[in-house]
């Protein structure tokens, strides 16, 4: 995936993995099943509102808490094309990259983009455009190693391609 365009769903600070996908649903690891409960404990209507391609924008420390890969899997399976936040919790960051959910850390964008805005993200350049307000934000491009990982489609295809 090289770009994302969609409507923004806005969240606050410290969105933890327990609200992204509550543990009571962890007995399943099926993406479709997990997607049904994505964000349920913080916004029970999220899954009804979200459309394929939509973008989540949040403030600091998005994805803090457990190492459950079920969290980025649930977000990806719910149709979300990209998560933008001021900062990400490190295990969530790692997991998202590993499973091929593009995520972009950009404090300026996270602070200025509003609920319902239409946003375009170019992953190659790191440029984020809020098409509703016309504002643009420059995020840091991925280091080469991570870019290779993303280009390969995640960690496993990347390892396979090396062998």
């Amino acid at each position, binding site marked *: 995936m090289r770009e994302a365009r969609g409507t923004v769903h806005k969240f606050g600070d410290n969105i933890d993995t327990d609200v992204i996908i509550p543990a009571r649903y962890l*007995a399943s*690891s099926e993406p479709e099943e997990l997607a049904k409960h994505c964000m349920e404990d913080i916004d029970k209507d999220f899954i009804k509102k979200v459309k394929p391609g939509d973008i989540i924008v949040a403030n600091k420390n998005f994805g803090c*808490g457990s*190492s459950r890969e079920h969290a980025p899997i649930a977000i990806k399976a719910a149709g979300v094309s990209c998560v933008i936040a001021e900062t990400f919790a490190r*295990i969530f960051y790692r997991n998202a990259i590993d499973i091929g959910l593009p995520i972009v850390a950009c404090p300026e964008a996270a602070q200025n983009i509003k609920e319902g805005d239409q946003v375009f993200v170019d992953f190659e350049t790191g440029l984020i455009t809020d098409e509703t307000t016309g504002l643009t934000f420059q995020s840091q491009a991925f280091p080469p190693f991570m870019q290779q990982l993303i280009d390969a489609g995640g960690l496993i295809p990347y390892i396979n391609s090396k*062998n």
Partner: protein
Amino acid sequence: MGMTMTQKILAKGAGLASVTAGQLIEADLDLVLGNDITAPVAIKEMDKFKTEGVFDKDKIALVPDHFVPAKDIKSAENCKCVREFAKRNKITNYFEVGQMGIEHALLPESGLVSPGDVIIGADSHTCTYGALGAFSTGVGSTDMAAGMATGKAWFRVPEAICFRLRGELQPRVSGKDVILHIIGEIGVDGALYQSMEFAGSGVAALSMDDRFTISNMAIEAGGKNGIFPVDEKTLAYEKEHGAEVDESKIFAPDDDAEYVRVIDIDLSKIRPTVAFPHLPENARTLDEIPEITIDQVVIGSCTNGRIQDLRQAADILKGRHVAEGVRVIVIPATNKIYLQAMEEGLIRIFLEAGAVVSTPTCGPCLGGYMGILAAGERCVSTTNRNFVGRMGDTTSEIYLASPATAAASAIAGKIADPTAC
């Protein structure tokens, strides 16, 4: 420029003479861990590799502990998946019900963690093993799968915060109070992407169980790992539990190691501390809280289900009875701890005080089973997360505390100061 303890371990693991913060490296793994929630996802991912099998059947640990003994059919299927995978790949360190315990108490106890090891676990509290001078960190299931297949993982070499400890803890104050105090000071993202390195004269006075508790909650400050220097207590612990110690893997930070921050902590000043809902950073000392009545107390988890924790709780519950209307659930973290508690008479103390004692399991810690909270209920818990809905209904409240504070609160029926008992 000098290296921190974590950087030295990572350099060794990557076969490099030195590393610097920010560098991306690939390191050899000494142990790869998974549980009944994360391993099934990893096992499914394993099928996608071109290569077959695991890199080393002795360097993988599989511990079904979250929903075990299986709480429902889906959990049973997950356990079956892990069990069959372990059998197929002849995994040495698979722990069935009867030998198992909560992973982060079980692995050190089983002698599987040595100083200087590089360990990944598909569980965020894998950082616990830093107490033994190992580099260990939580990852997701895909990283676990790649680790099992290749024996390697990629890491970004972290910057570090140095916590310089001095003095000694007061009676009935423990490692939990220290780490809640620290998270209260720096916040839940205070150590984001960084290692938390503990140092100073105060380390020597901390028991191993205190150190495990402190390292365990590094993740609650956003940390990549939380690591202690190796001293006589570490070596005595390793000897007692049959772990191999390789002298060349015992590292101390260089004198000129670079830290982004140095934080001084006088352990003698730490007071019993409770983290209020719904974040571990909402830490307050017991001197500054209003009256808070409670419905339930949980004493257990990878944070505080070890023998010292049970002893401290029993010391307060002995000869007393829990308050009317309060449910107290005690969960020894492993079978061995359970047995030891039995032999020391602690189980009797708990039962006579009106508590229940469960088989080792994560259970209520993550809202799995064995003590789920109803709407509006309040729980004092020795676990590590008090997020919205973590233990049950989204309107329930979790107050994180030490075993001593939890026991004192159980008797009082409200959050209470253990030093006043």
